[in-house]
């Protein structure tokens, strides 16, 4: 659906994104994740043909964003960052305008606006001026205009920023519903959002792609082995030594502030955990608790974006 090839964009002398290459398949919900200033918005603006890249090529459905901009725009619905809307218009008038400009006319116009109004739950607010709507409702109006003419590609720039928790859940559910057949590309700096919504995550940092995978794989990938949390009833030093001496164990750290508990870092051998348990029991100590620790997406993210800034090892041991 979307094919991005060595995309680079400079603002003055400062690169916003550098050598980004991505392929996004049809029907997927894909998240662009990164801290503020990572280049998410720049990528989306180039994809929507609002800007042109300094170098590189972007195609949507095989259409070049540089030379066939109008054709590309016909295939996408875009919700810009901060949801800019014509606040002096009523919901109905605004959607009518957006539909007209997208090429819907005549009897179709009413049907099409009815459809998006219903999809976004705006039935009761059609006549109201957009400036009188709450932020959550504005967000829905923004989504509604993006959905007009049923575009196969939805591009959402930080769709949940600035909403209260209830509204965030609402908008997320809406996006999930809208997904379906469509390709959805959304940007966010909120981690749980990606793990809840997206089938694929692209982690951006300083204008480059750091990692690209499913949320689950990303978490697993970065672990490079297992971590096991052990709580053992026995002589502290002997236990630590016995654990450290086991084959395949790379590191044993006592848990801070909790005596008798250890964090064991080991290579990815699944047989190691039973062995550990047997060793503890056979040594005559009591095994109080044993837990496999998986990295959350949050930790993966922090790991990836701090990797370069010399803080490695601080968050992920």
């Amino acid at each position, binding site marked *: 659906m979307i094919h991005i090839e060595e995309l680079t964009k400079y603002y003055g002398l400062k690169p916003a994104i550098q050598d980004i290459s991505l392929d996004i398949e049809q029907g997927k919900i894909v998240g662009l994740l990164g801290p503020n200033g990572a280049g998410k918005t720049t990528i989306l603006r180039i994809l929507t043909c609002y*800007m042109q890249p300094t170098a590189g090529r972007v195609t949507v459905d095989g259409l070049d964003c540089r030379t066939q901009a109008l054709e590309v*725009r016909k295939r996408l619905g875009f919700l810009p960052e901060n949801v*800019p*809307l014509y606040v002096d218009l009523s919901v109905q008038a605004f959607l009518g*305008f*957006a539909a*007209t400009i997208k090429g819907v006319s005549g009897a179709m116009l009413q049907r099409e606006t009815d459809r998006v109004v219903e999809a976004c739950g705006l039935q009761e607010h059609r006549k109201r001026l957009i400036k009188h709507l709450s932020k959550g409702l504005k967000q829905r109006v923004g989504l509604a205009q993006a959905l007009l003419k049923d575009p196969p590609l939805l591009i959402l720039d930080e769709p949940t920023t600035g909403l209260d928790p209830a509204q965030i859940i609402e908008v997320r559910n809406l996006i999930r519903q809208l997904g379906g057949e469509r390709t959805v590309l959304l940007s966010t700096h909120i981690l749980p959002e990606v793990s809840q919504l997206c089938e694929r995550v692209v982690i951006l940092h300083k204008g480059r792609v750091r990692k690209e995978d499913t949320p689950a794989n990303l978490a697993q990938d970065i672990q490079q082995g297992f971590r096991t949390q052990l709580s053992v009833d026995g002589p502290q030093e002997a236990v630590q030594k016995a654990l450290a001496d086991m084959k395949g164990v790379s590191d044993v750290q006592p848990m801070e502030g909790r005596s008798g508990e250890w964090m064991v870092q080991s290579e990815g051998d699944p047989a190691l955990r039973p062995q550990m348990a047997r060793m503890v029991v056979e040594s005559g100590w009591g095994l109080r608790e044993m837990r496999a620790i998986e990295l959350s997406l949050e930790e993966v993210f922090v790991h990836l974006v701090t990797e370069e800034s010399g803080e490695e090892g601080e968050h992920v041991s």
Partner: protein
Amino acid sequence: MRGISGVFRKEITIAFVSPIFYAACFIFLLLSGYFFYSTTAYFSLLSFQAAQNPFLSESLNLTDMVIKPFFGDLAVILLLMLPLLTMRLYAEEKKSGTIELLFTYPVSDASVLAGKFAATMALVLLMLAGTIPFMIILETMVDLEWGLLGAGYLGVVLLGASFIALGIFTSSVTENQIVAAVVSFGALLMFWALGWAQSVTGPTFGAVLGHLSIVDHLDRFTQGLIDTRDVVFYALFTLFWLFLTLRFLNSRFWRG
């Protein structure tokens, strides 16, 4: 085409819900009404005096003393009002971010521009239509030459189009509406006053200045003369600024 009509309708709707258009319309009609009243009243006073003085009555001329000054007055009021109508066209969209919506809809920059220009033209036509009752009142008292009036209105409409085009350009280069209005007003005044320097510059340069002066071209229209030179001047002036607007909007593709 659908892009143009969509933008046109949106701009008209926004103009009618915002107070700027009503304020501009009110001031425009108030001032034009006052100017019309004062010139007509002065003319009728002179006419009474001319009844006793046949020598004076020979020099009395409705076209020169009422119609011509009236169109000149309309031009001055438009000079003051049109920057206020054009200032928001692009500046507001840039400030509020809606330009991002507009520029990602499947519609070309030129269609958007055409829609905005046409919408503002429609507003100006509406304002000018508000002055036609003045002429109808005048018609009840004197025998008006409607051809002359038509030429005058055509001239004012063309002048208005030029003002709008320049105003749209200044609005497209900034996101601050006040800056857009001030710069467009200043630039229009400059074009207005270019002709004044004619007498102190040399004959060649003076002629150039005279031809560039935006209001000098209105004179022949108000005398009932539609000269292609004047029509072409206004058309080129309008297209020039609209073209610059398009080029400037296009620069977002390569500027950082």
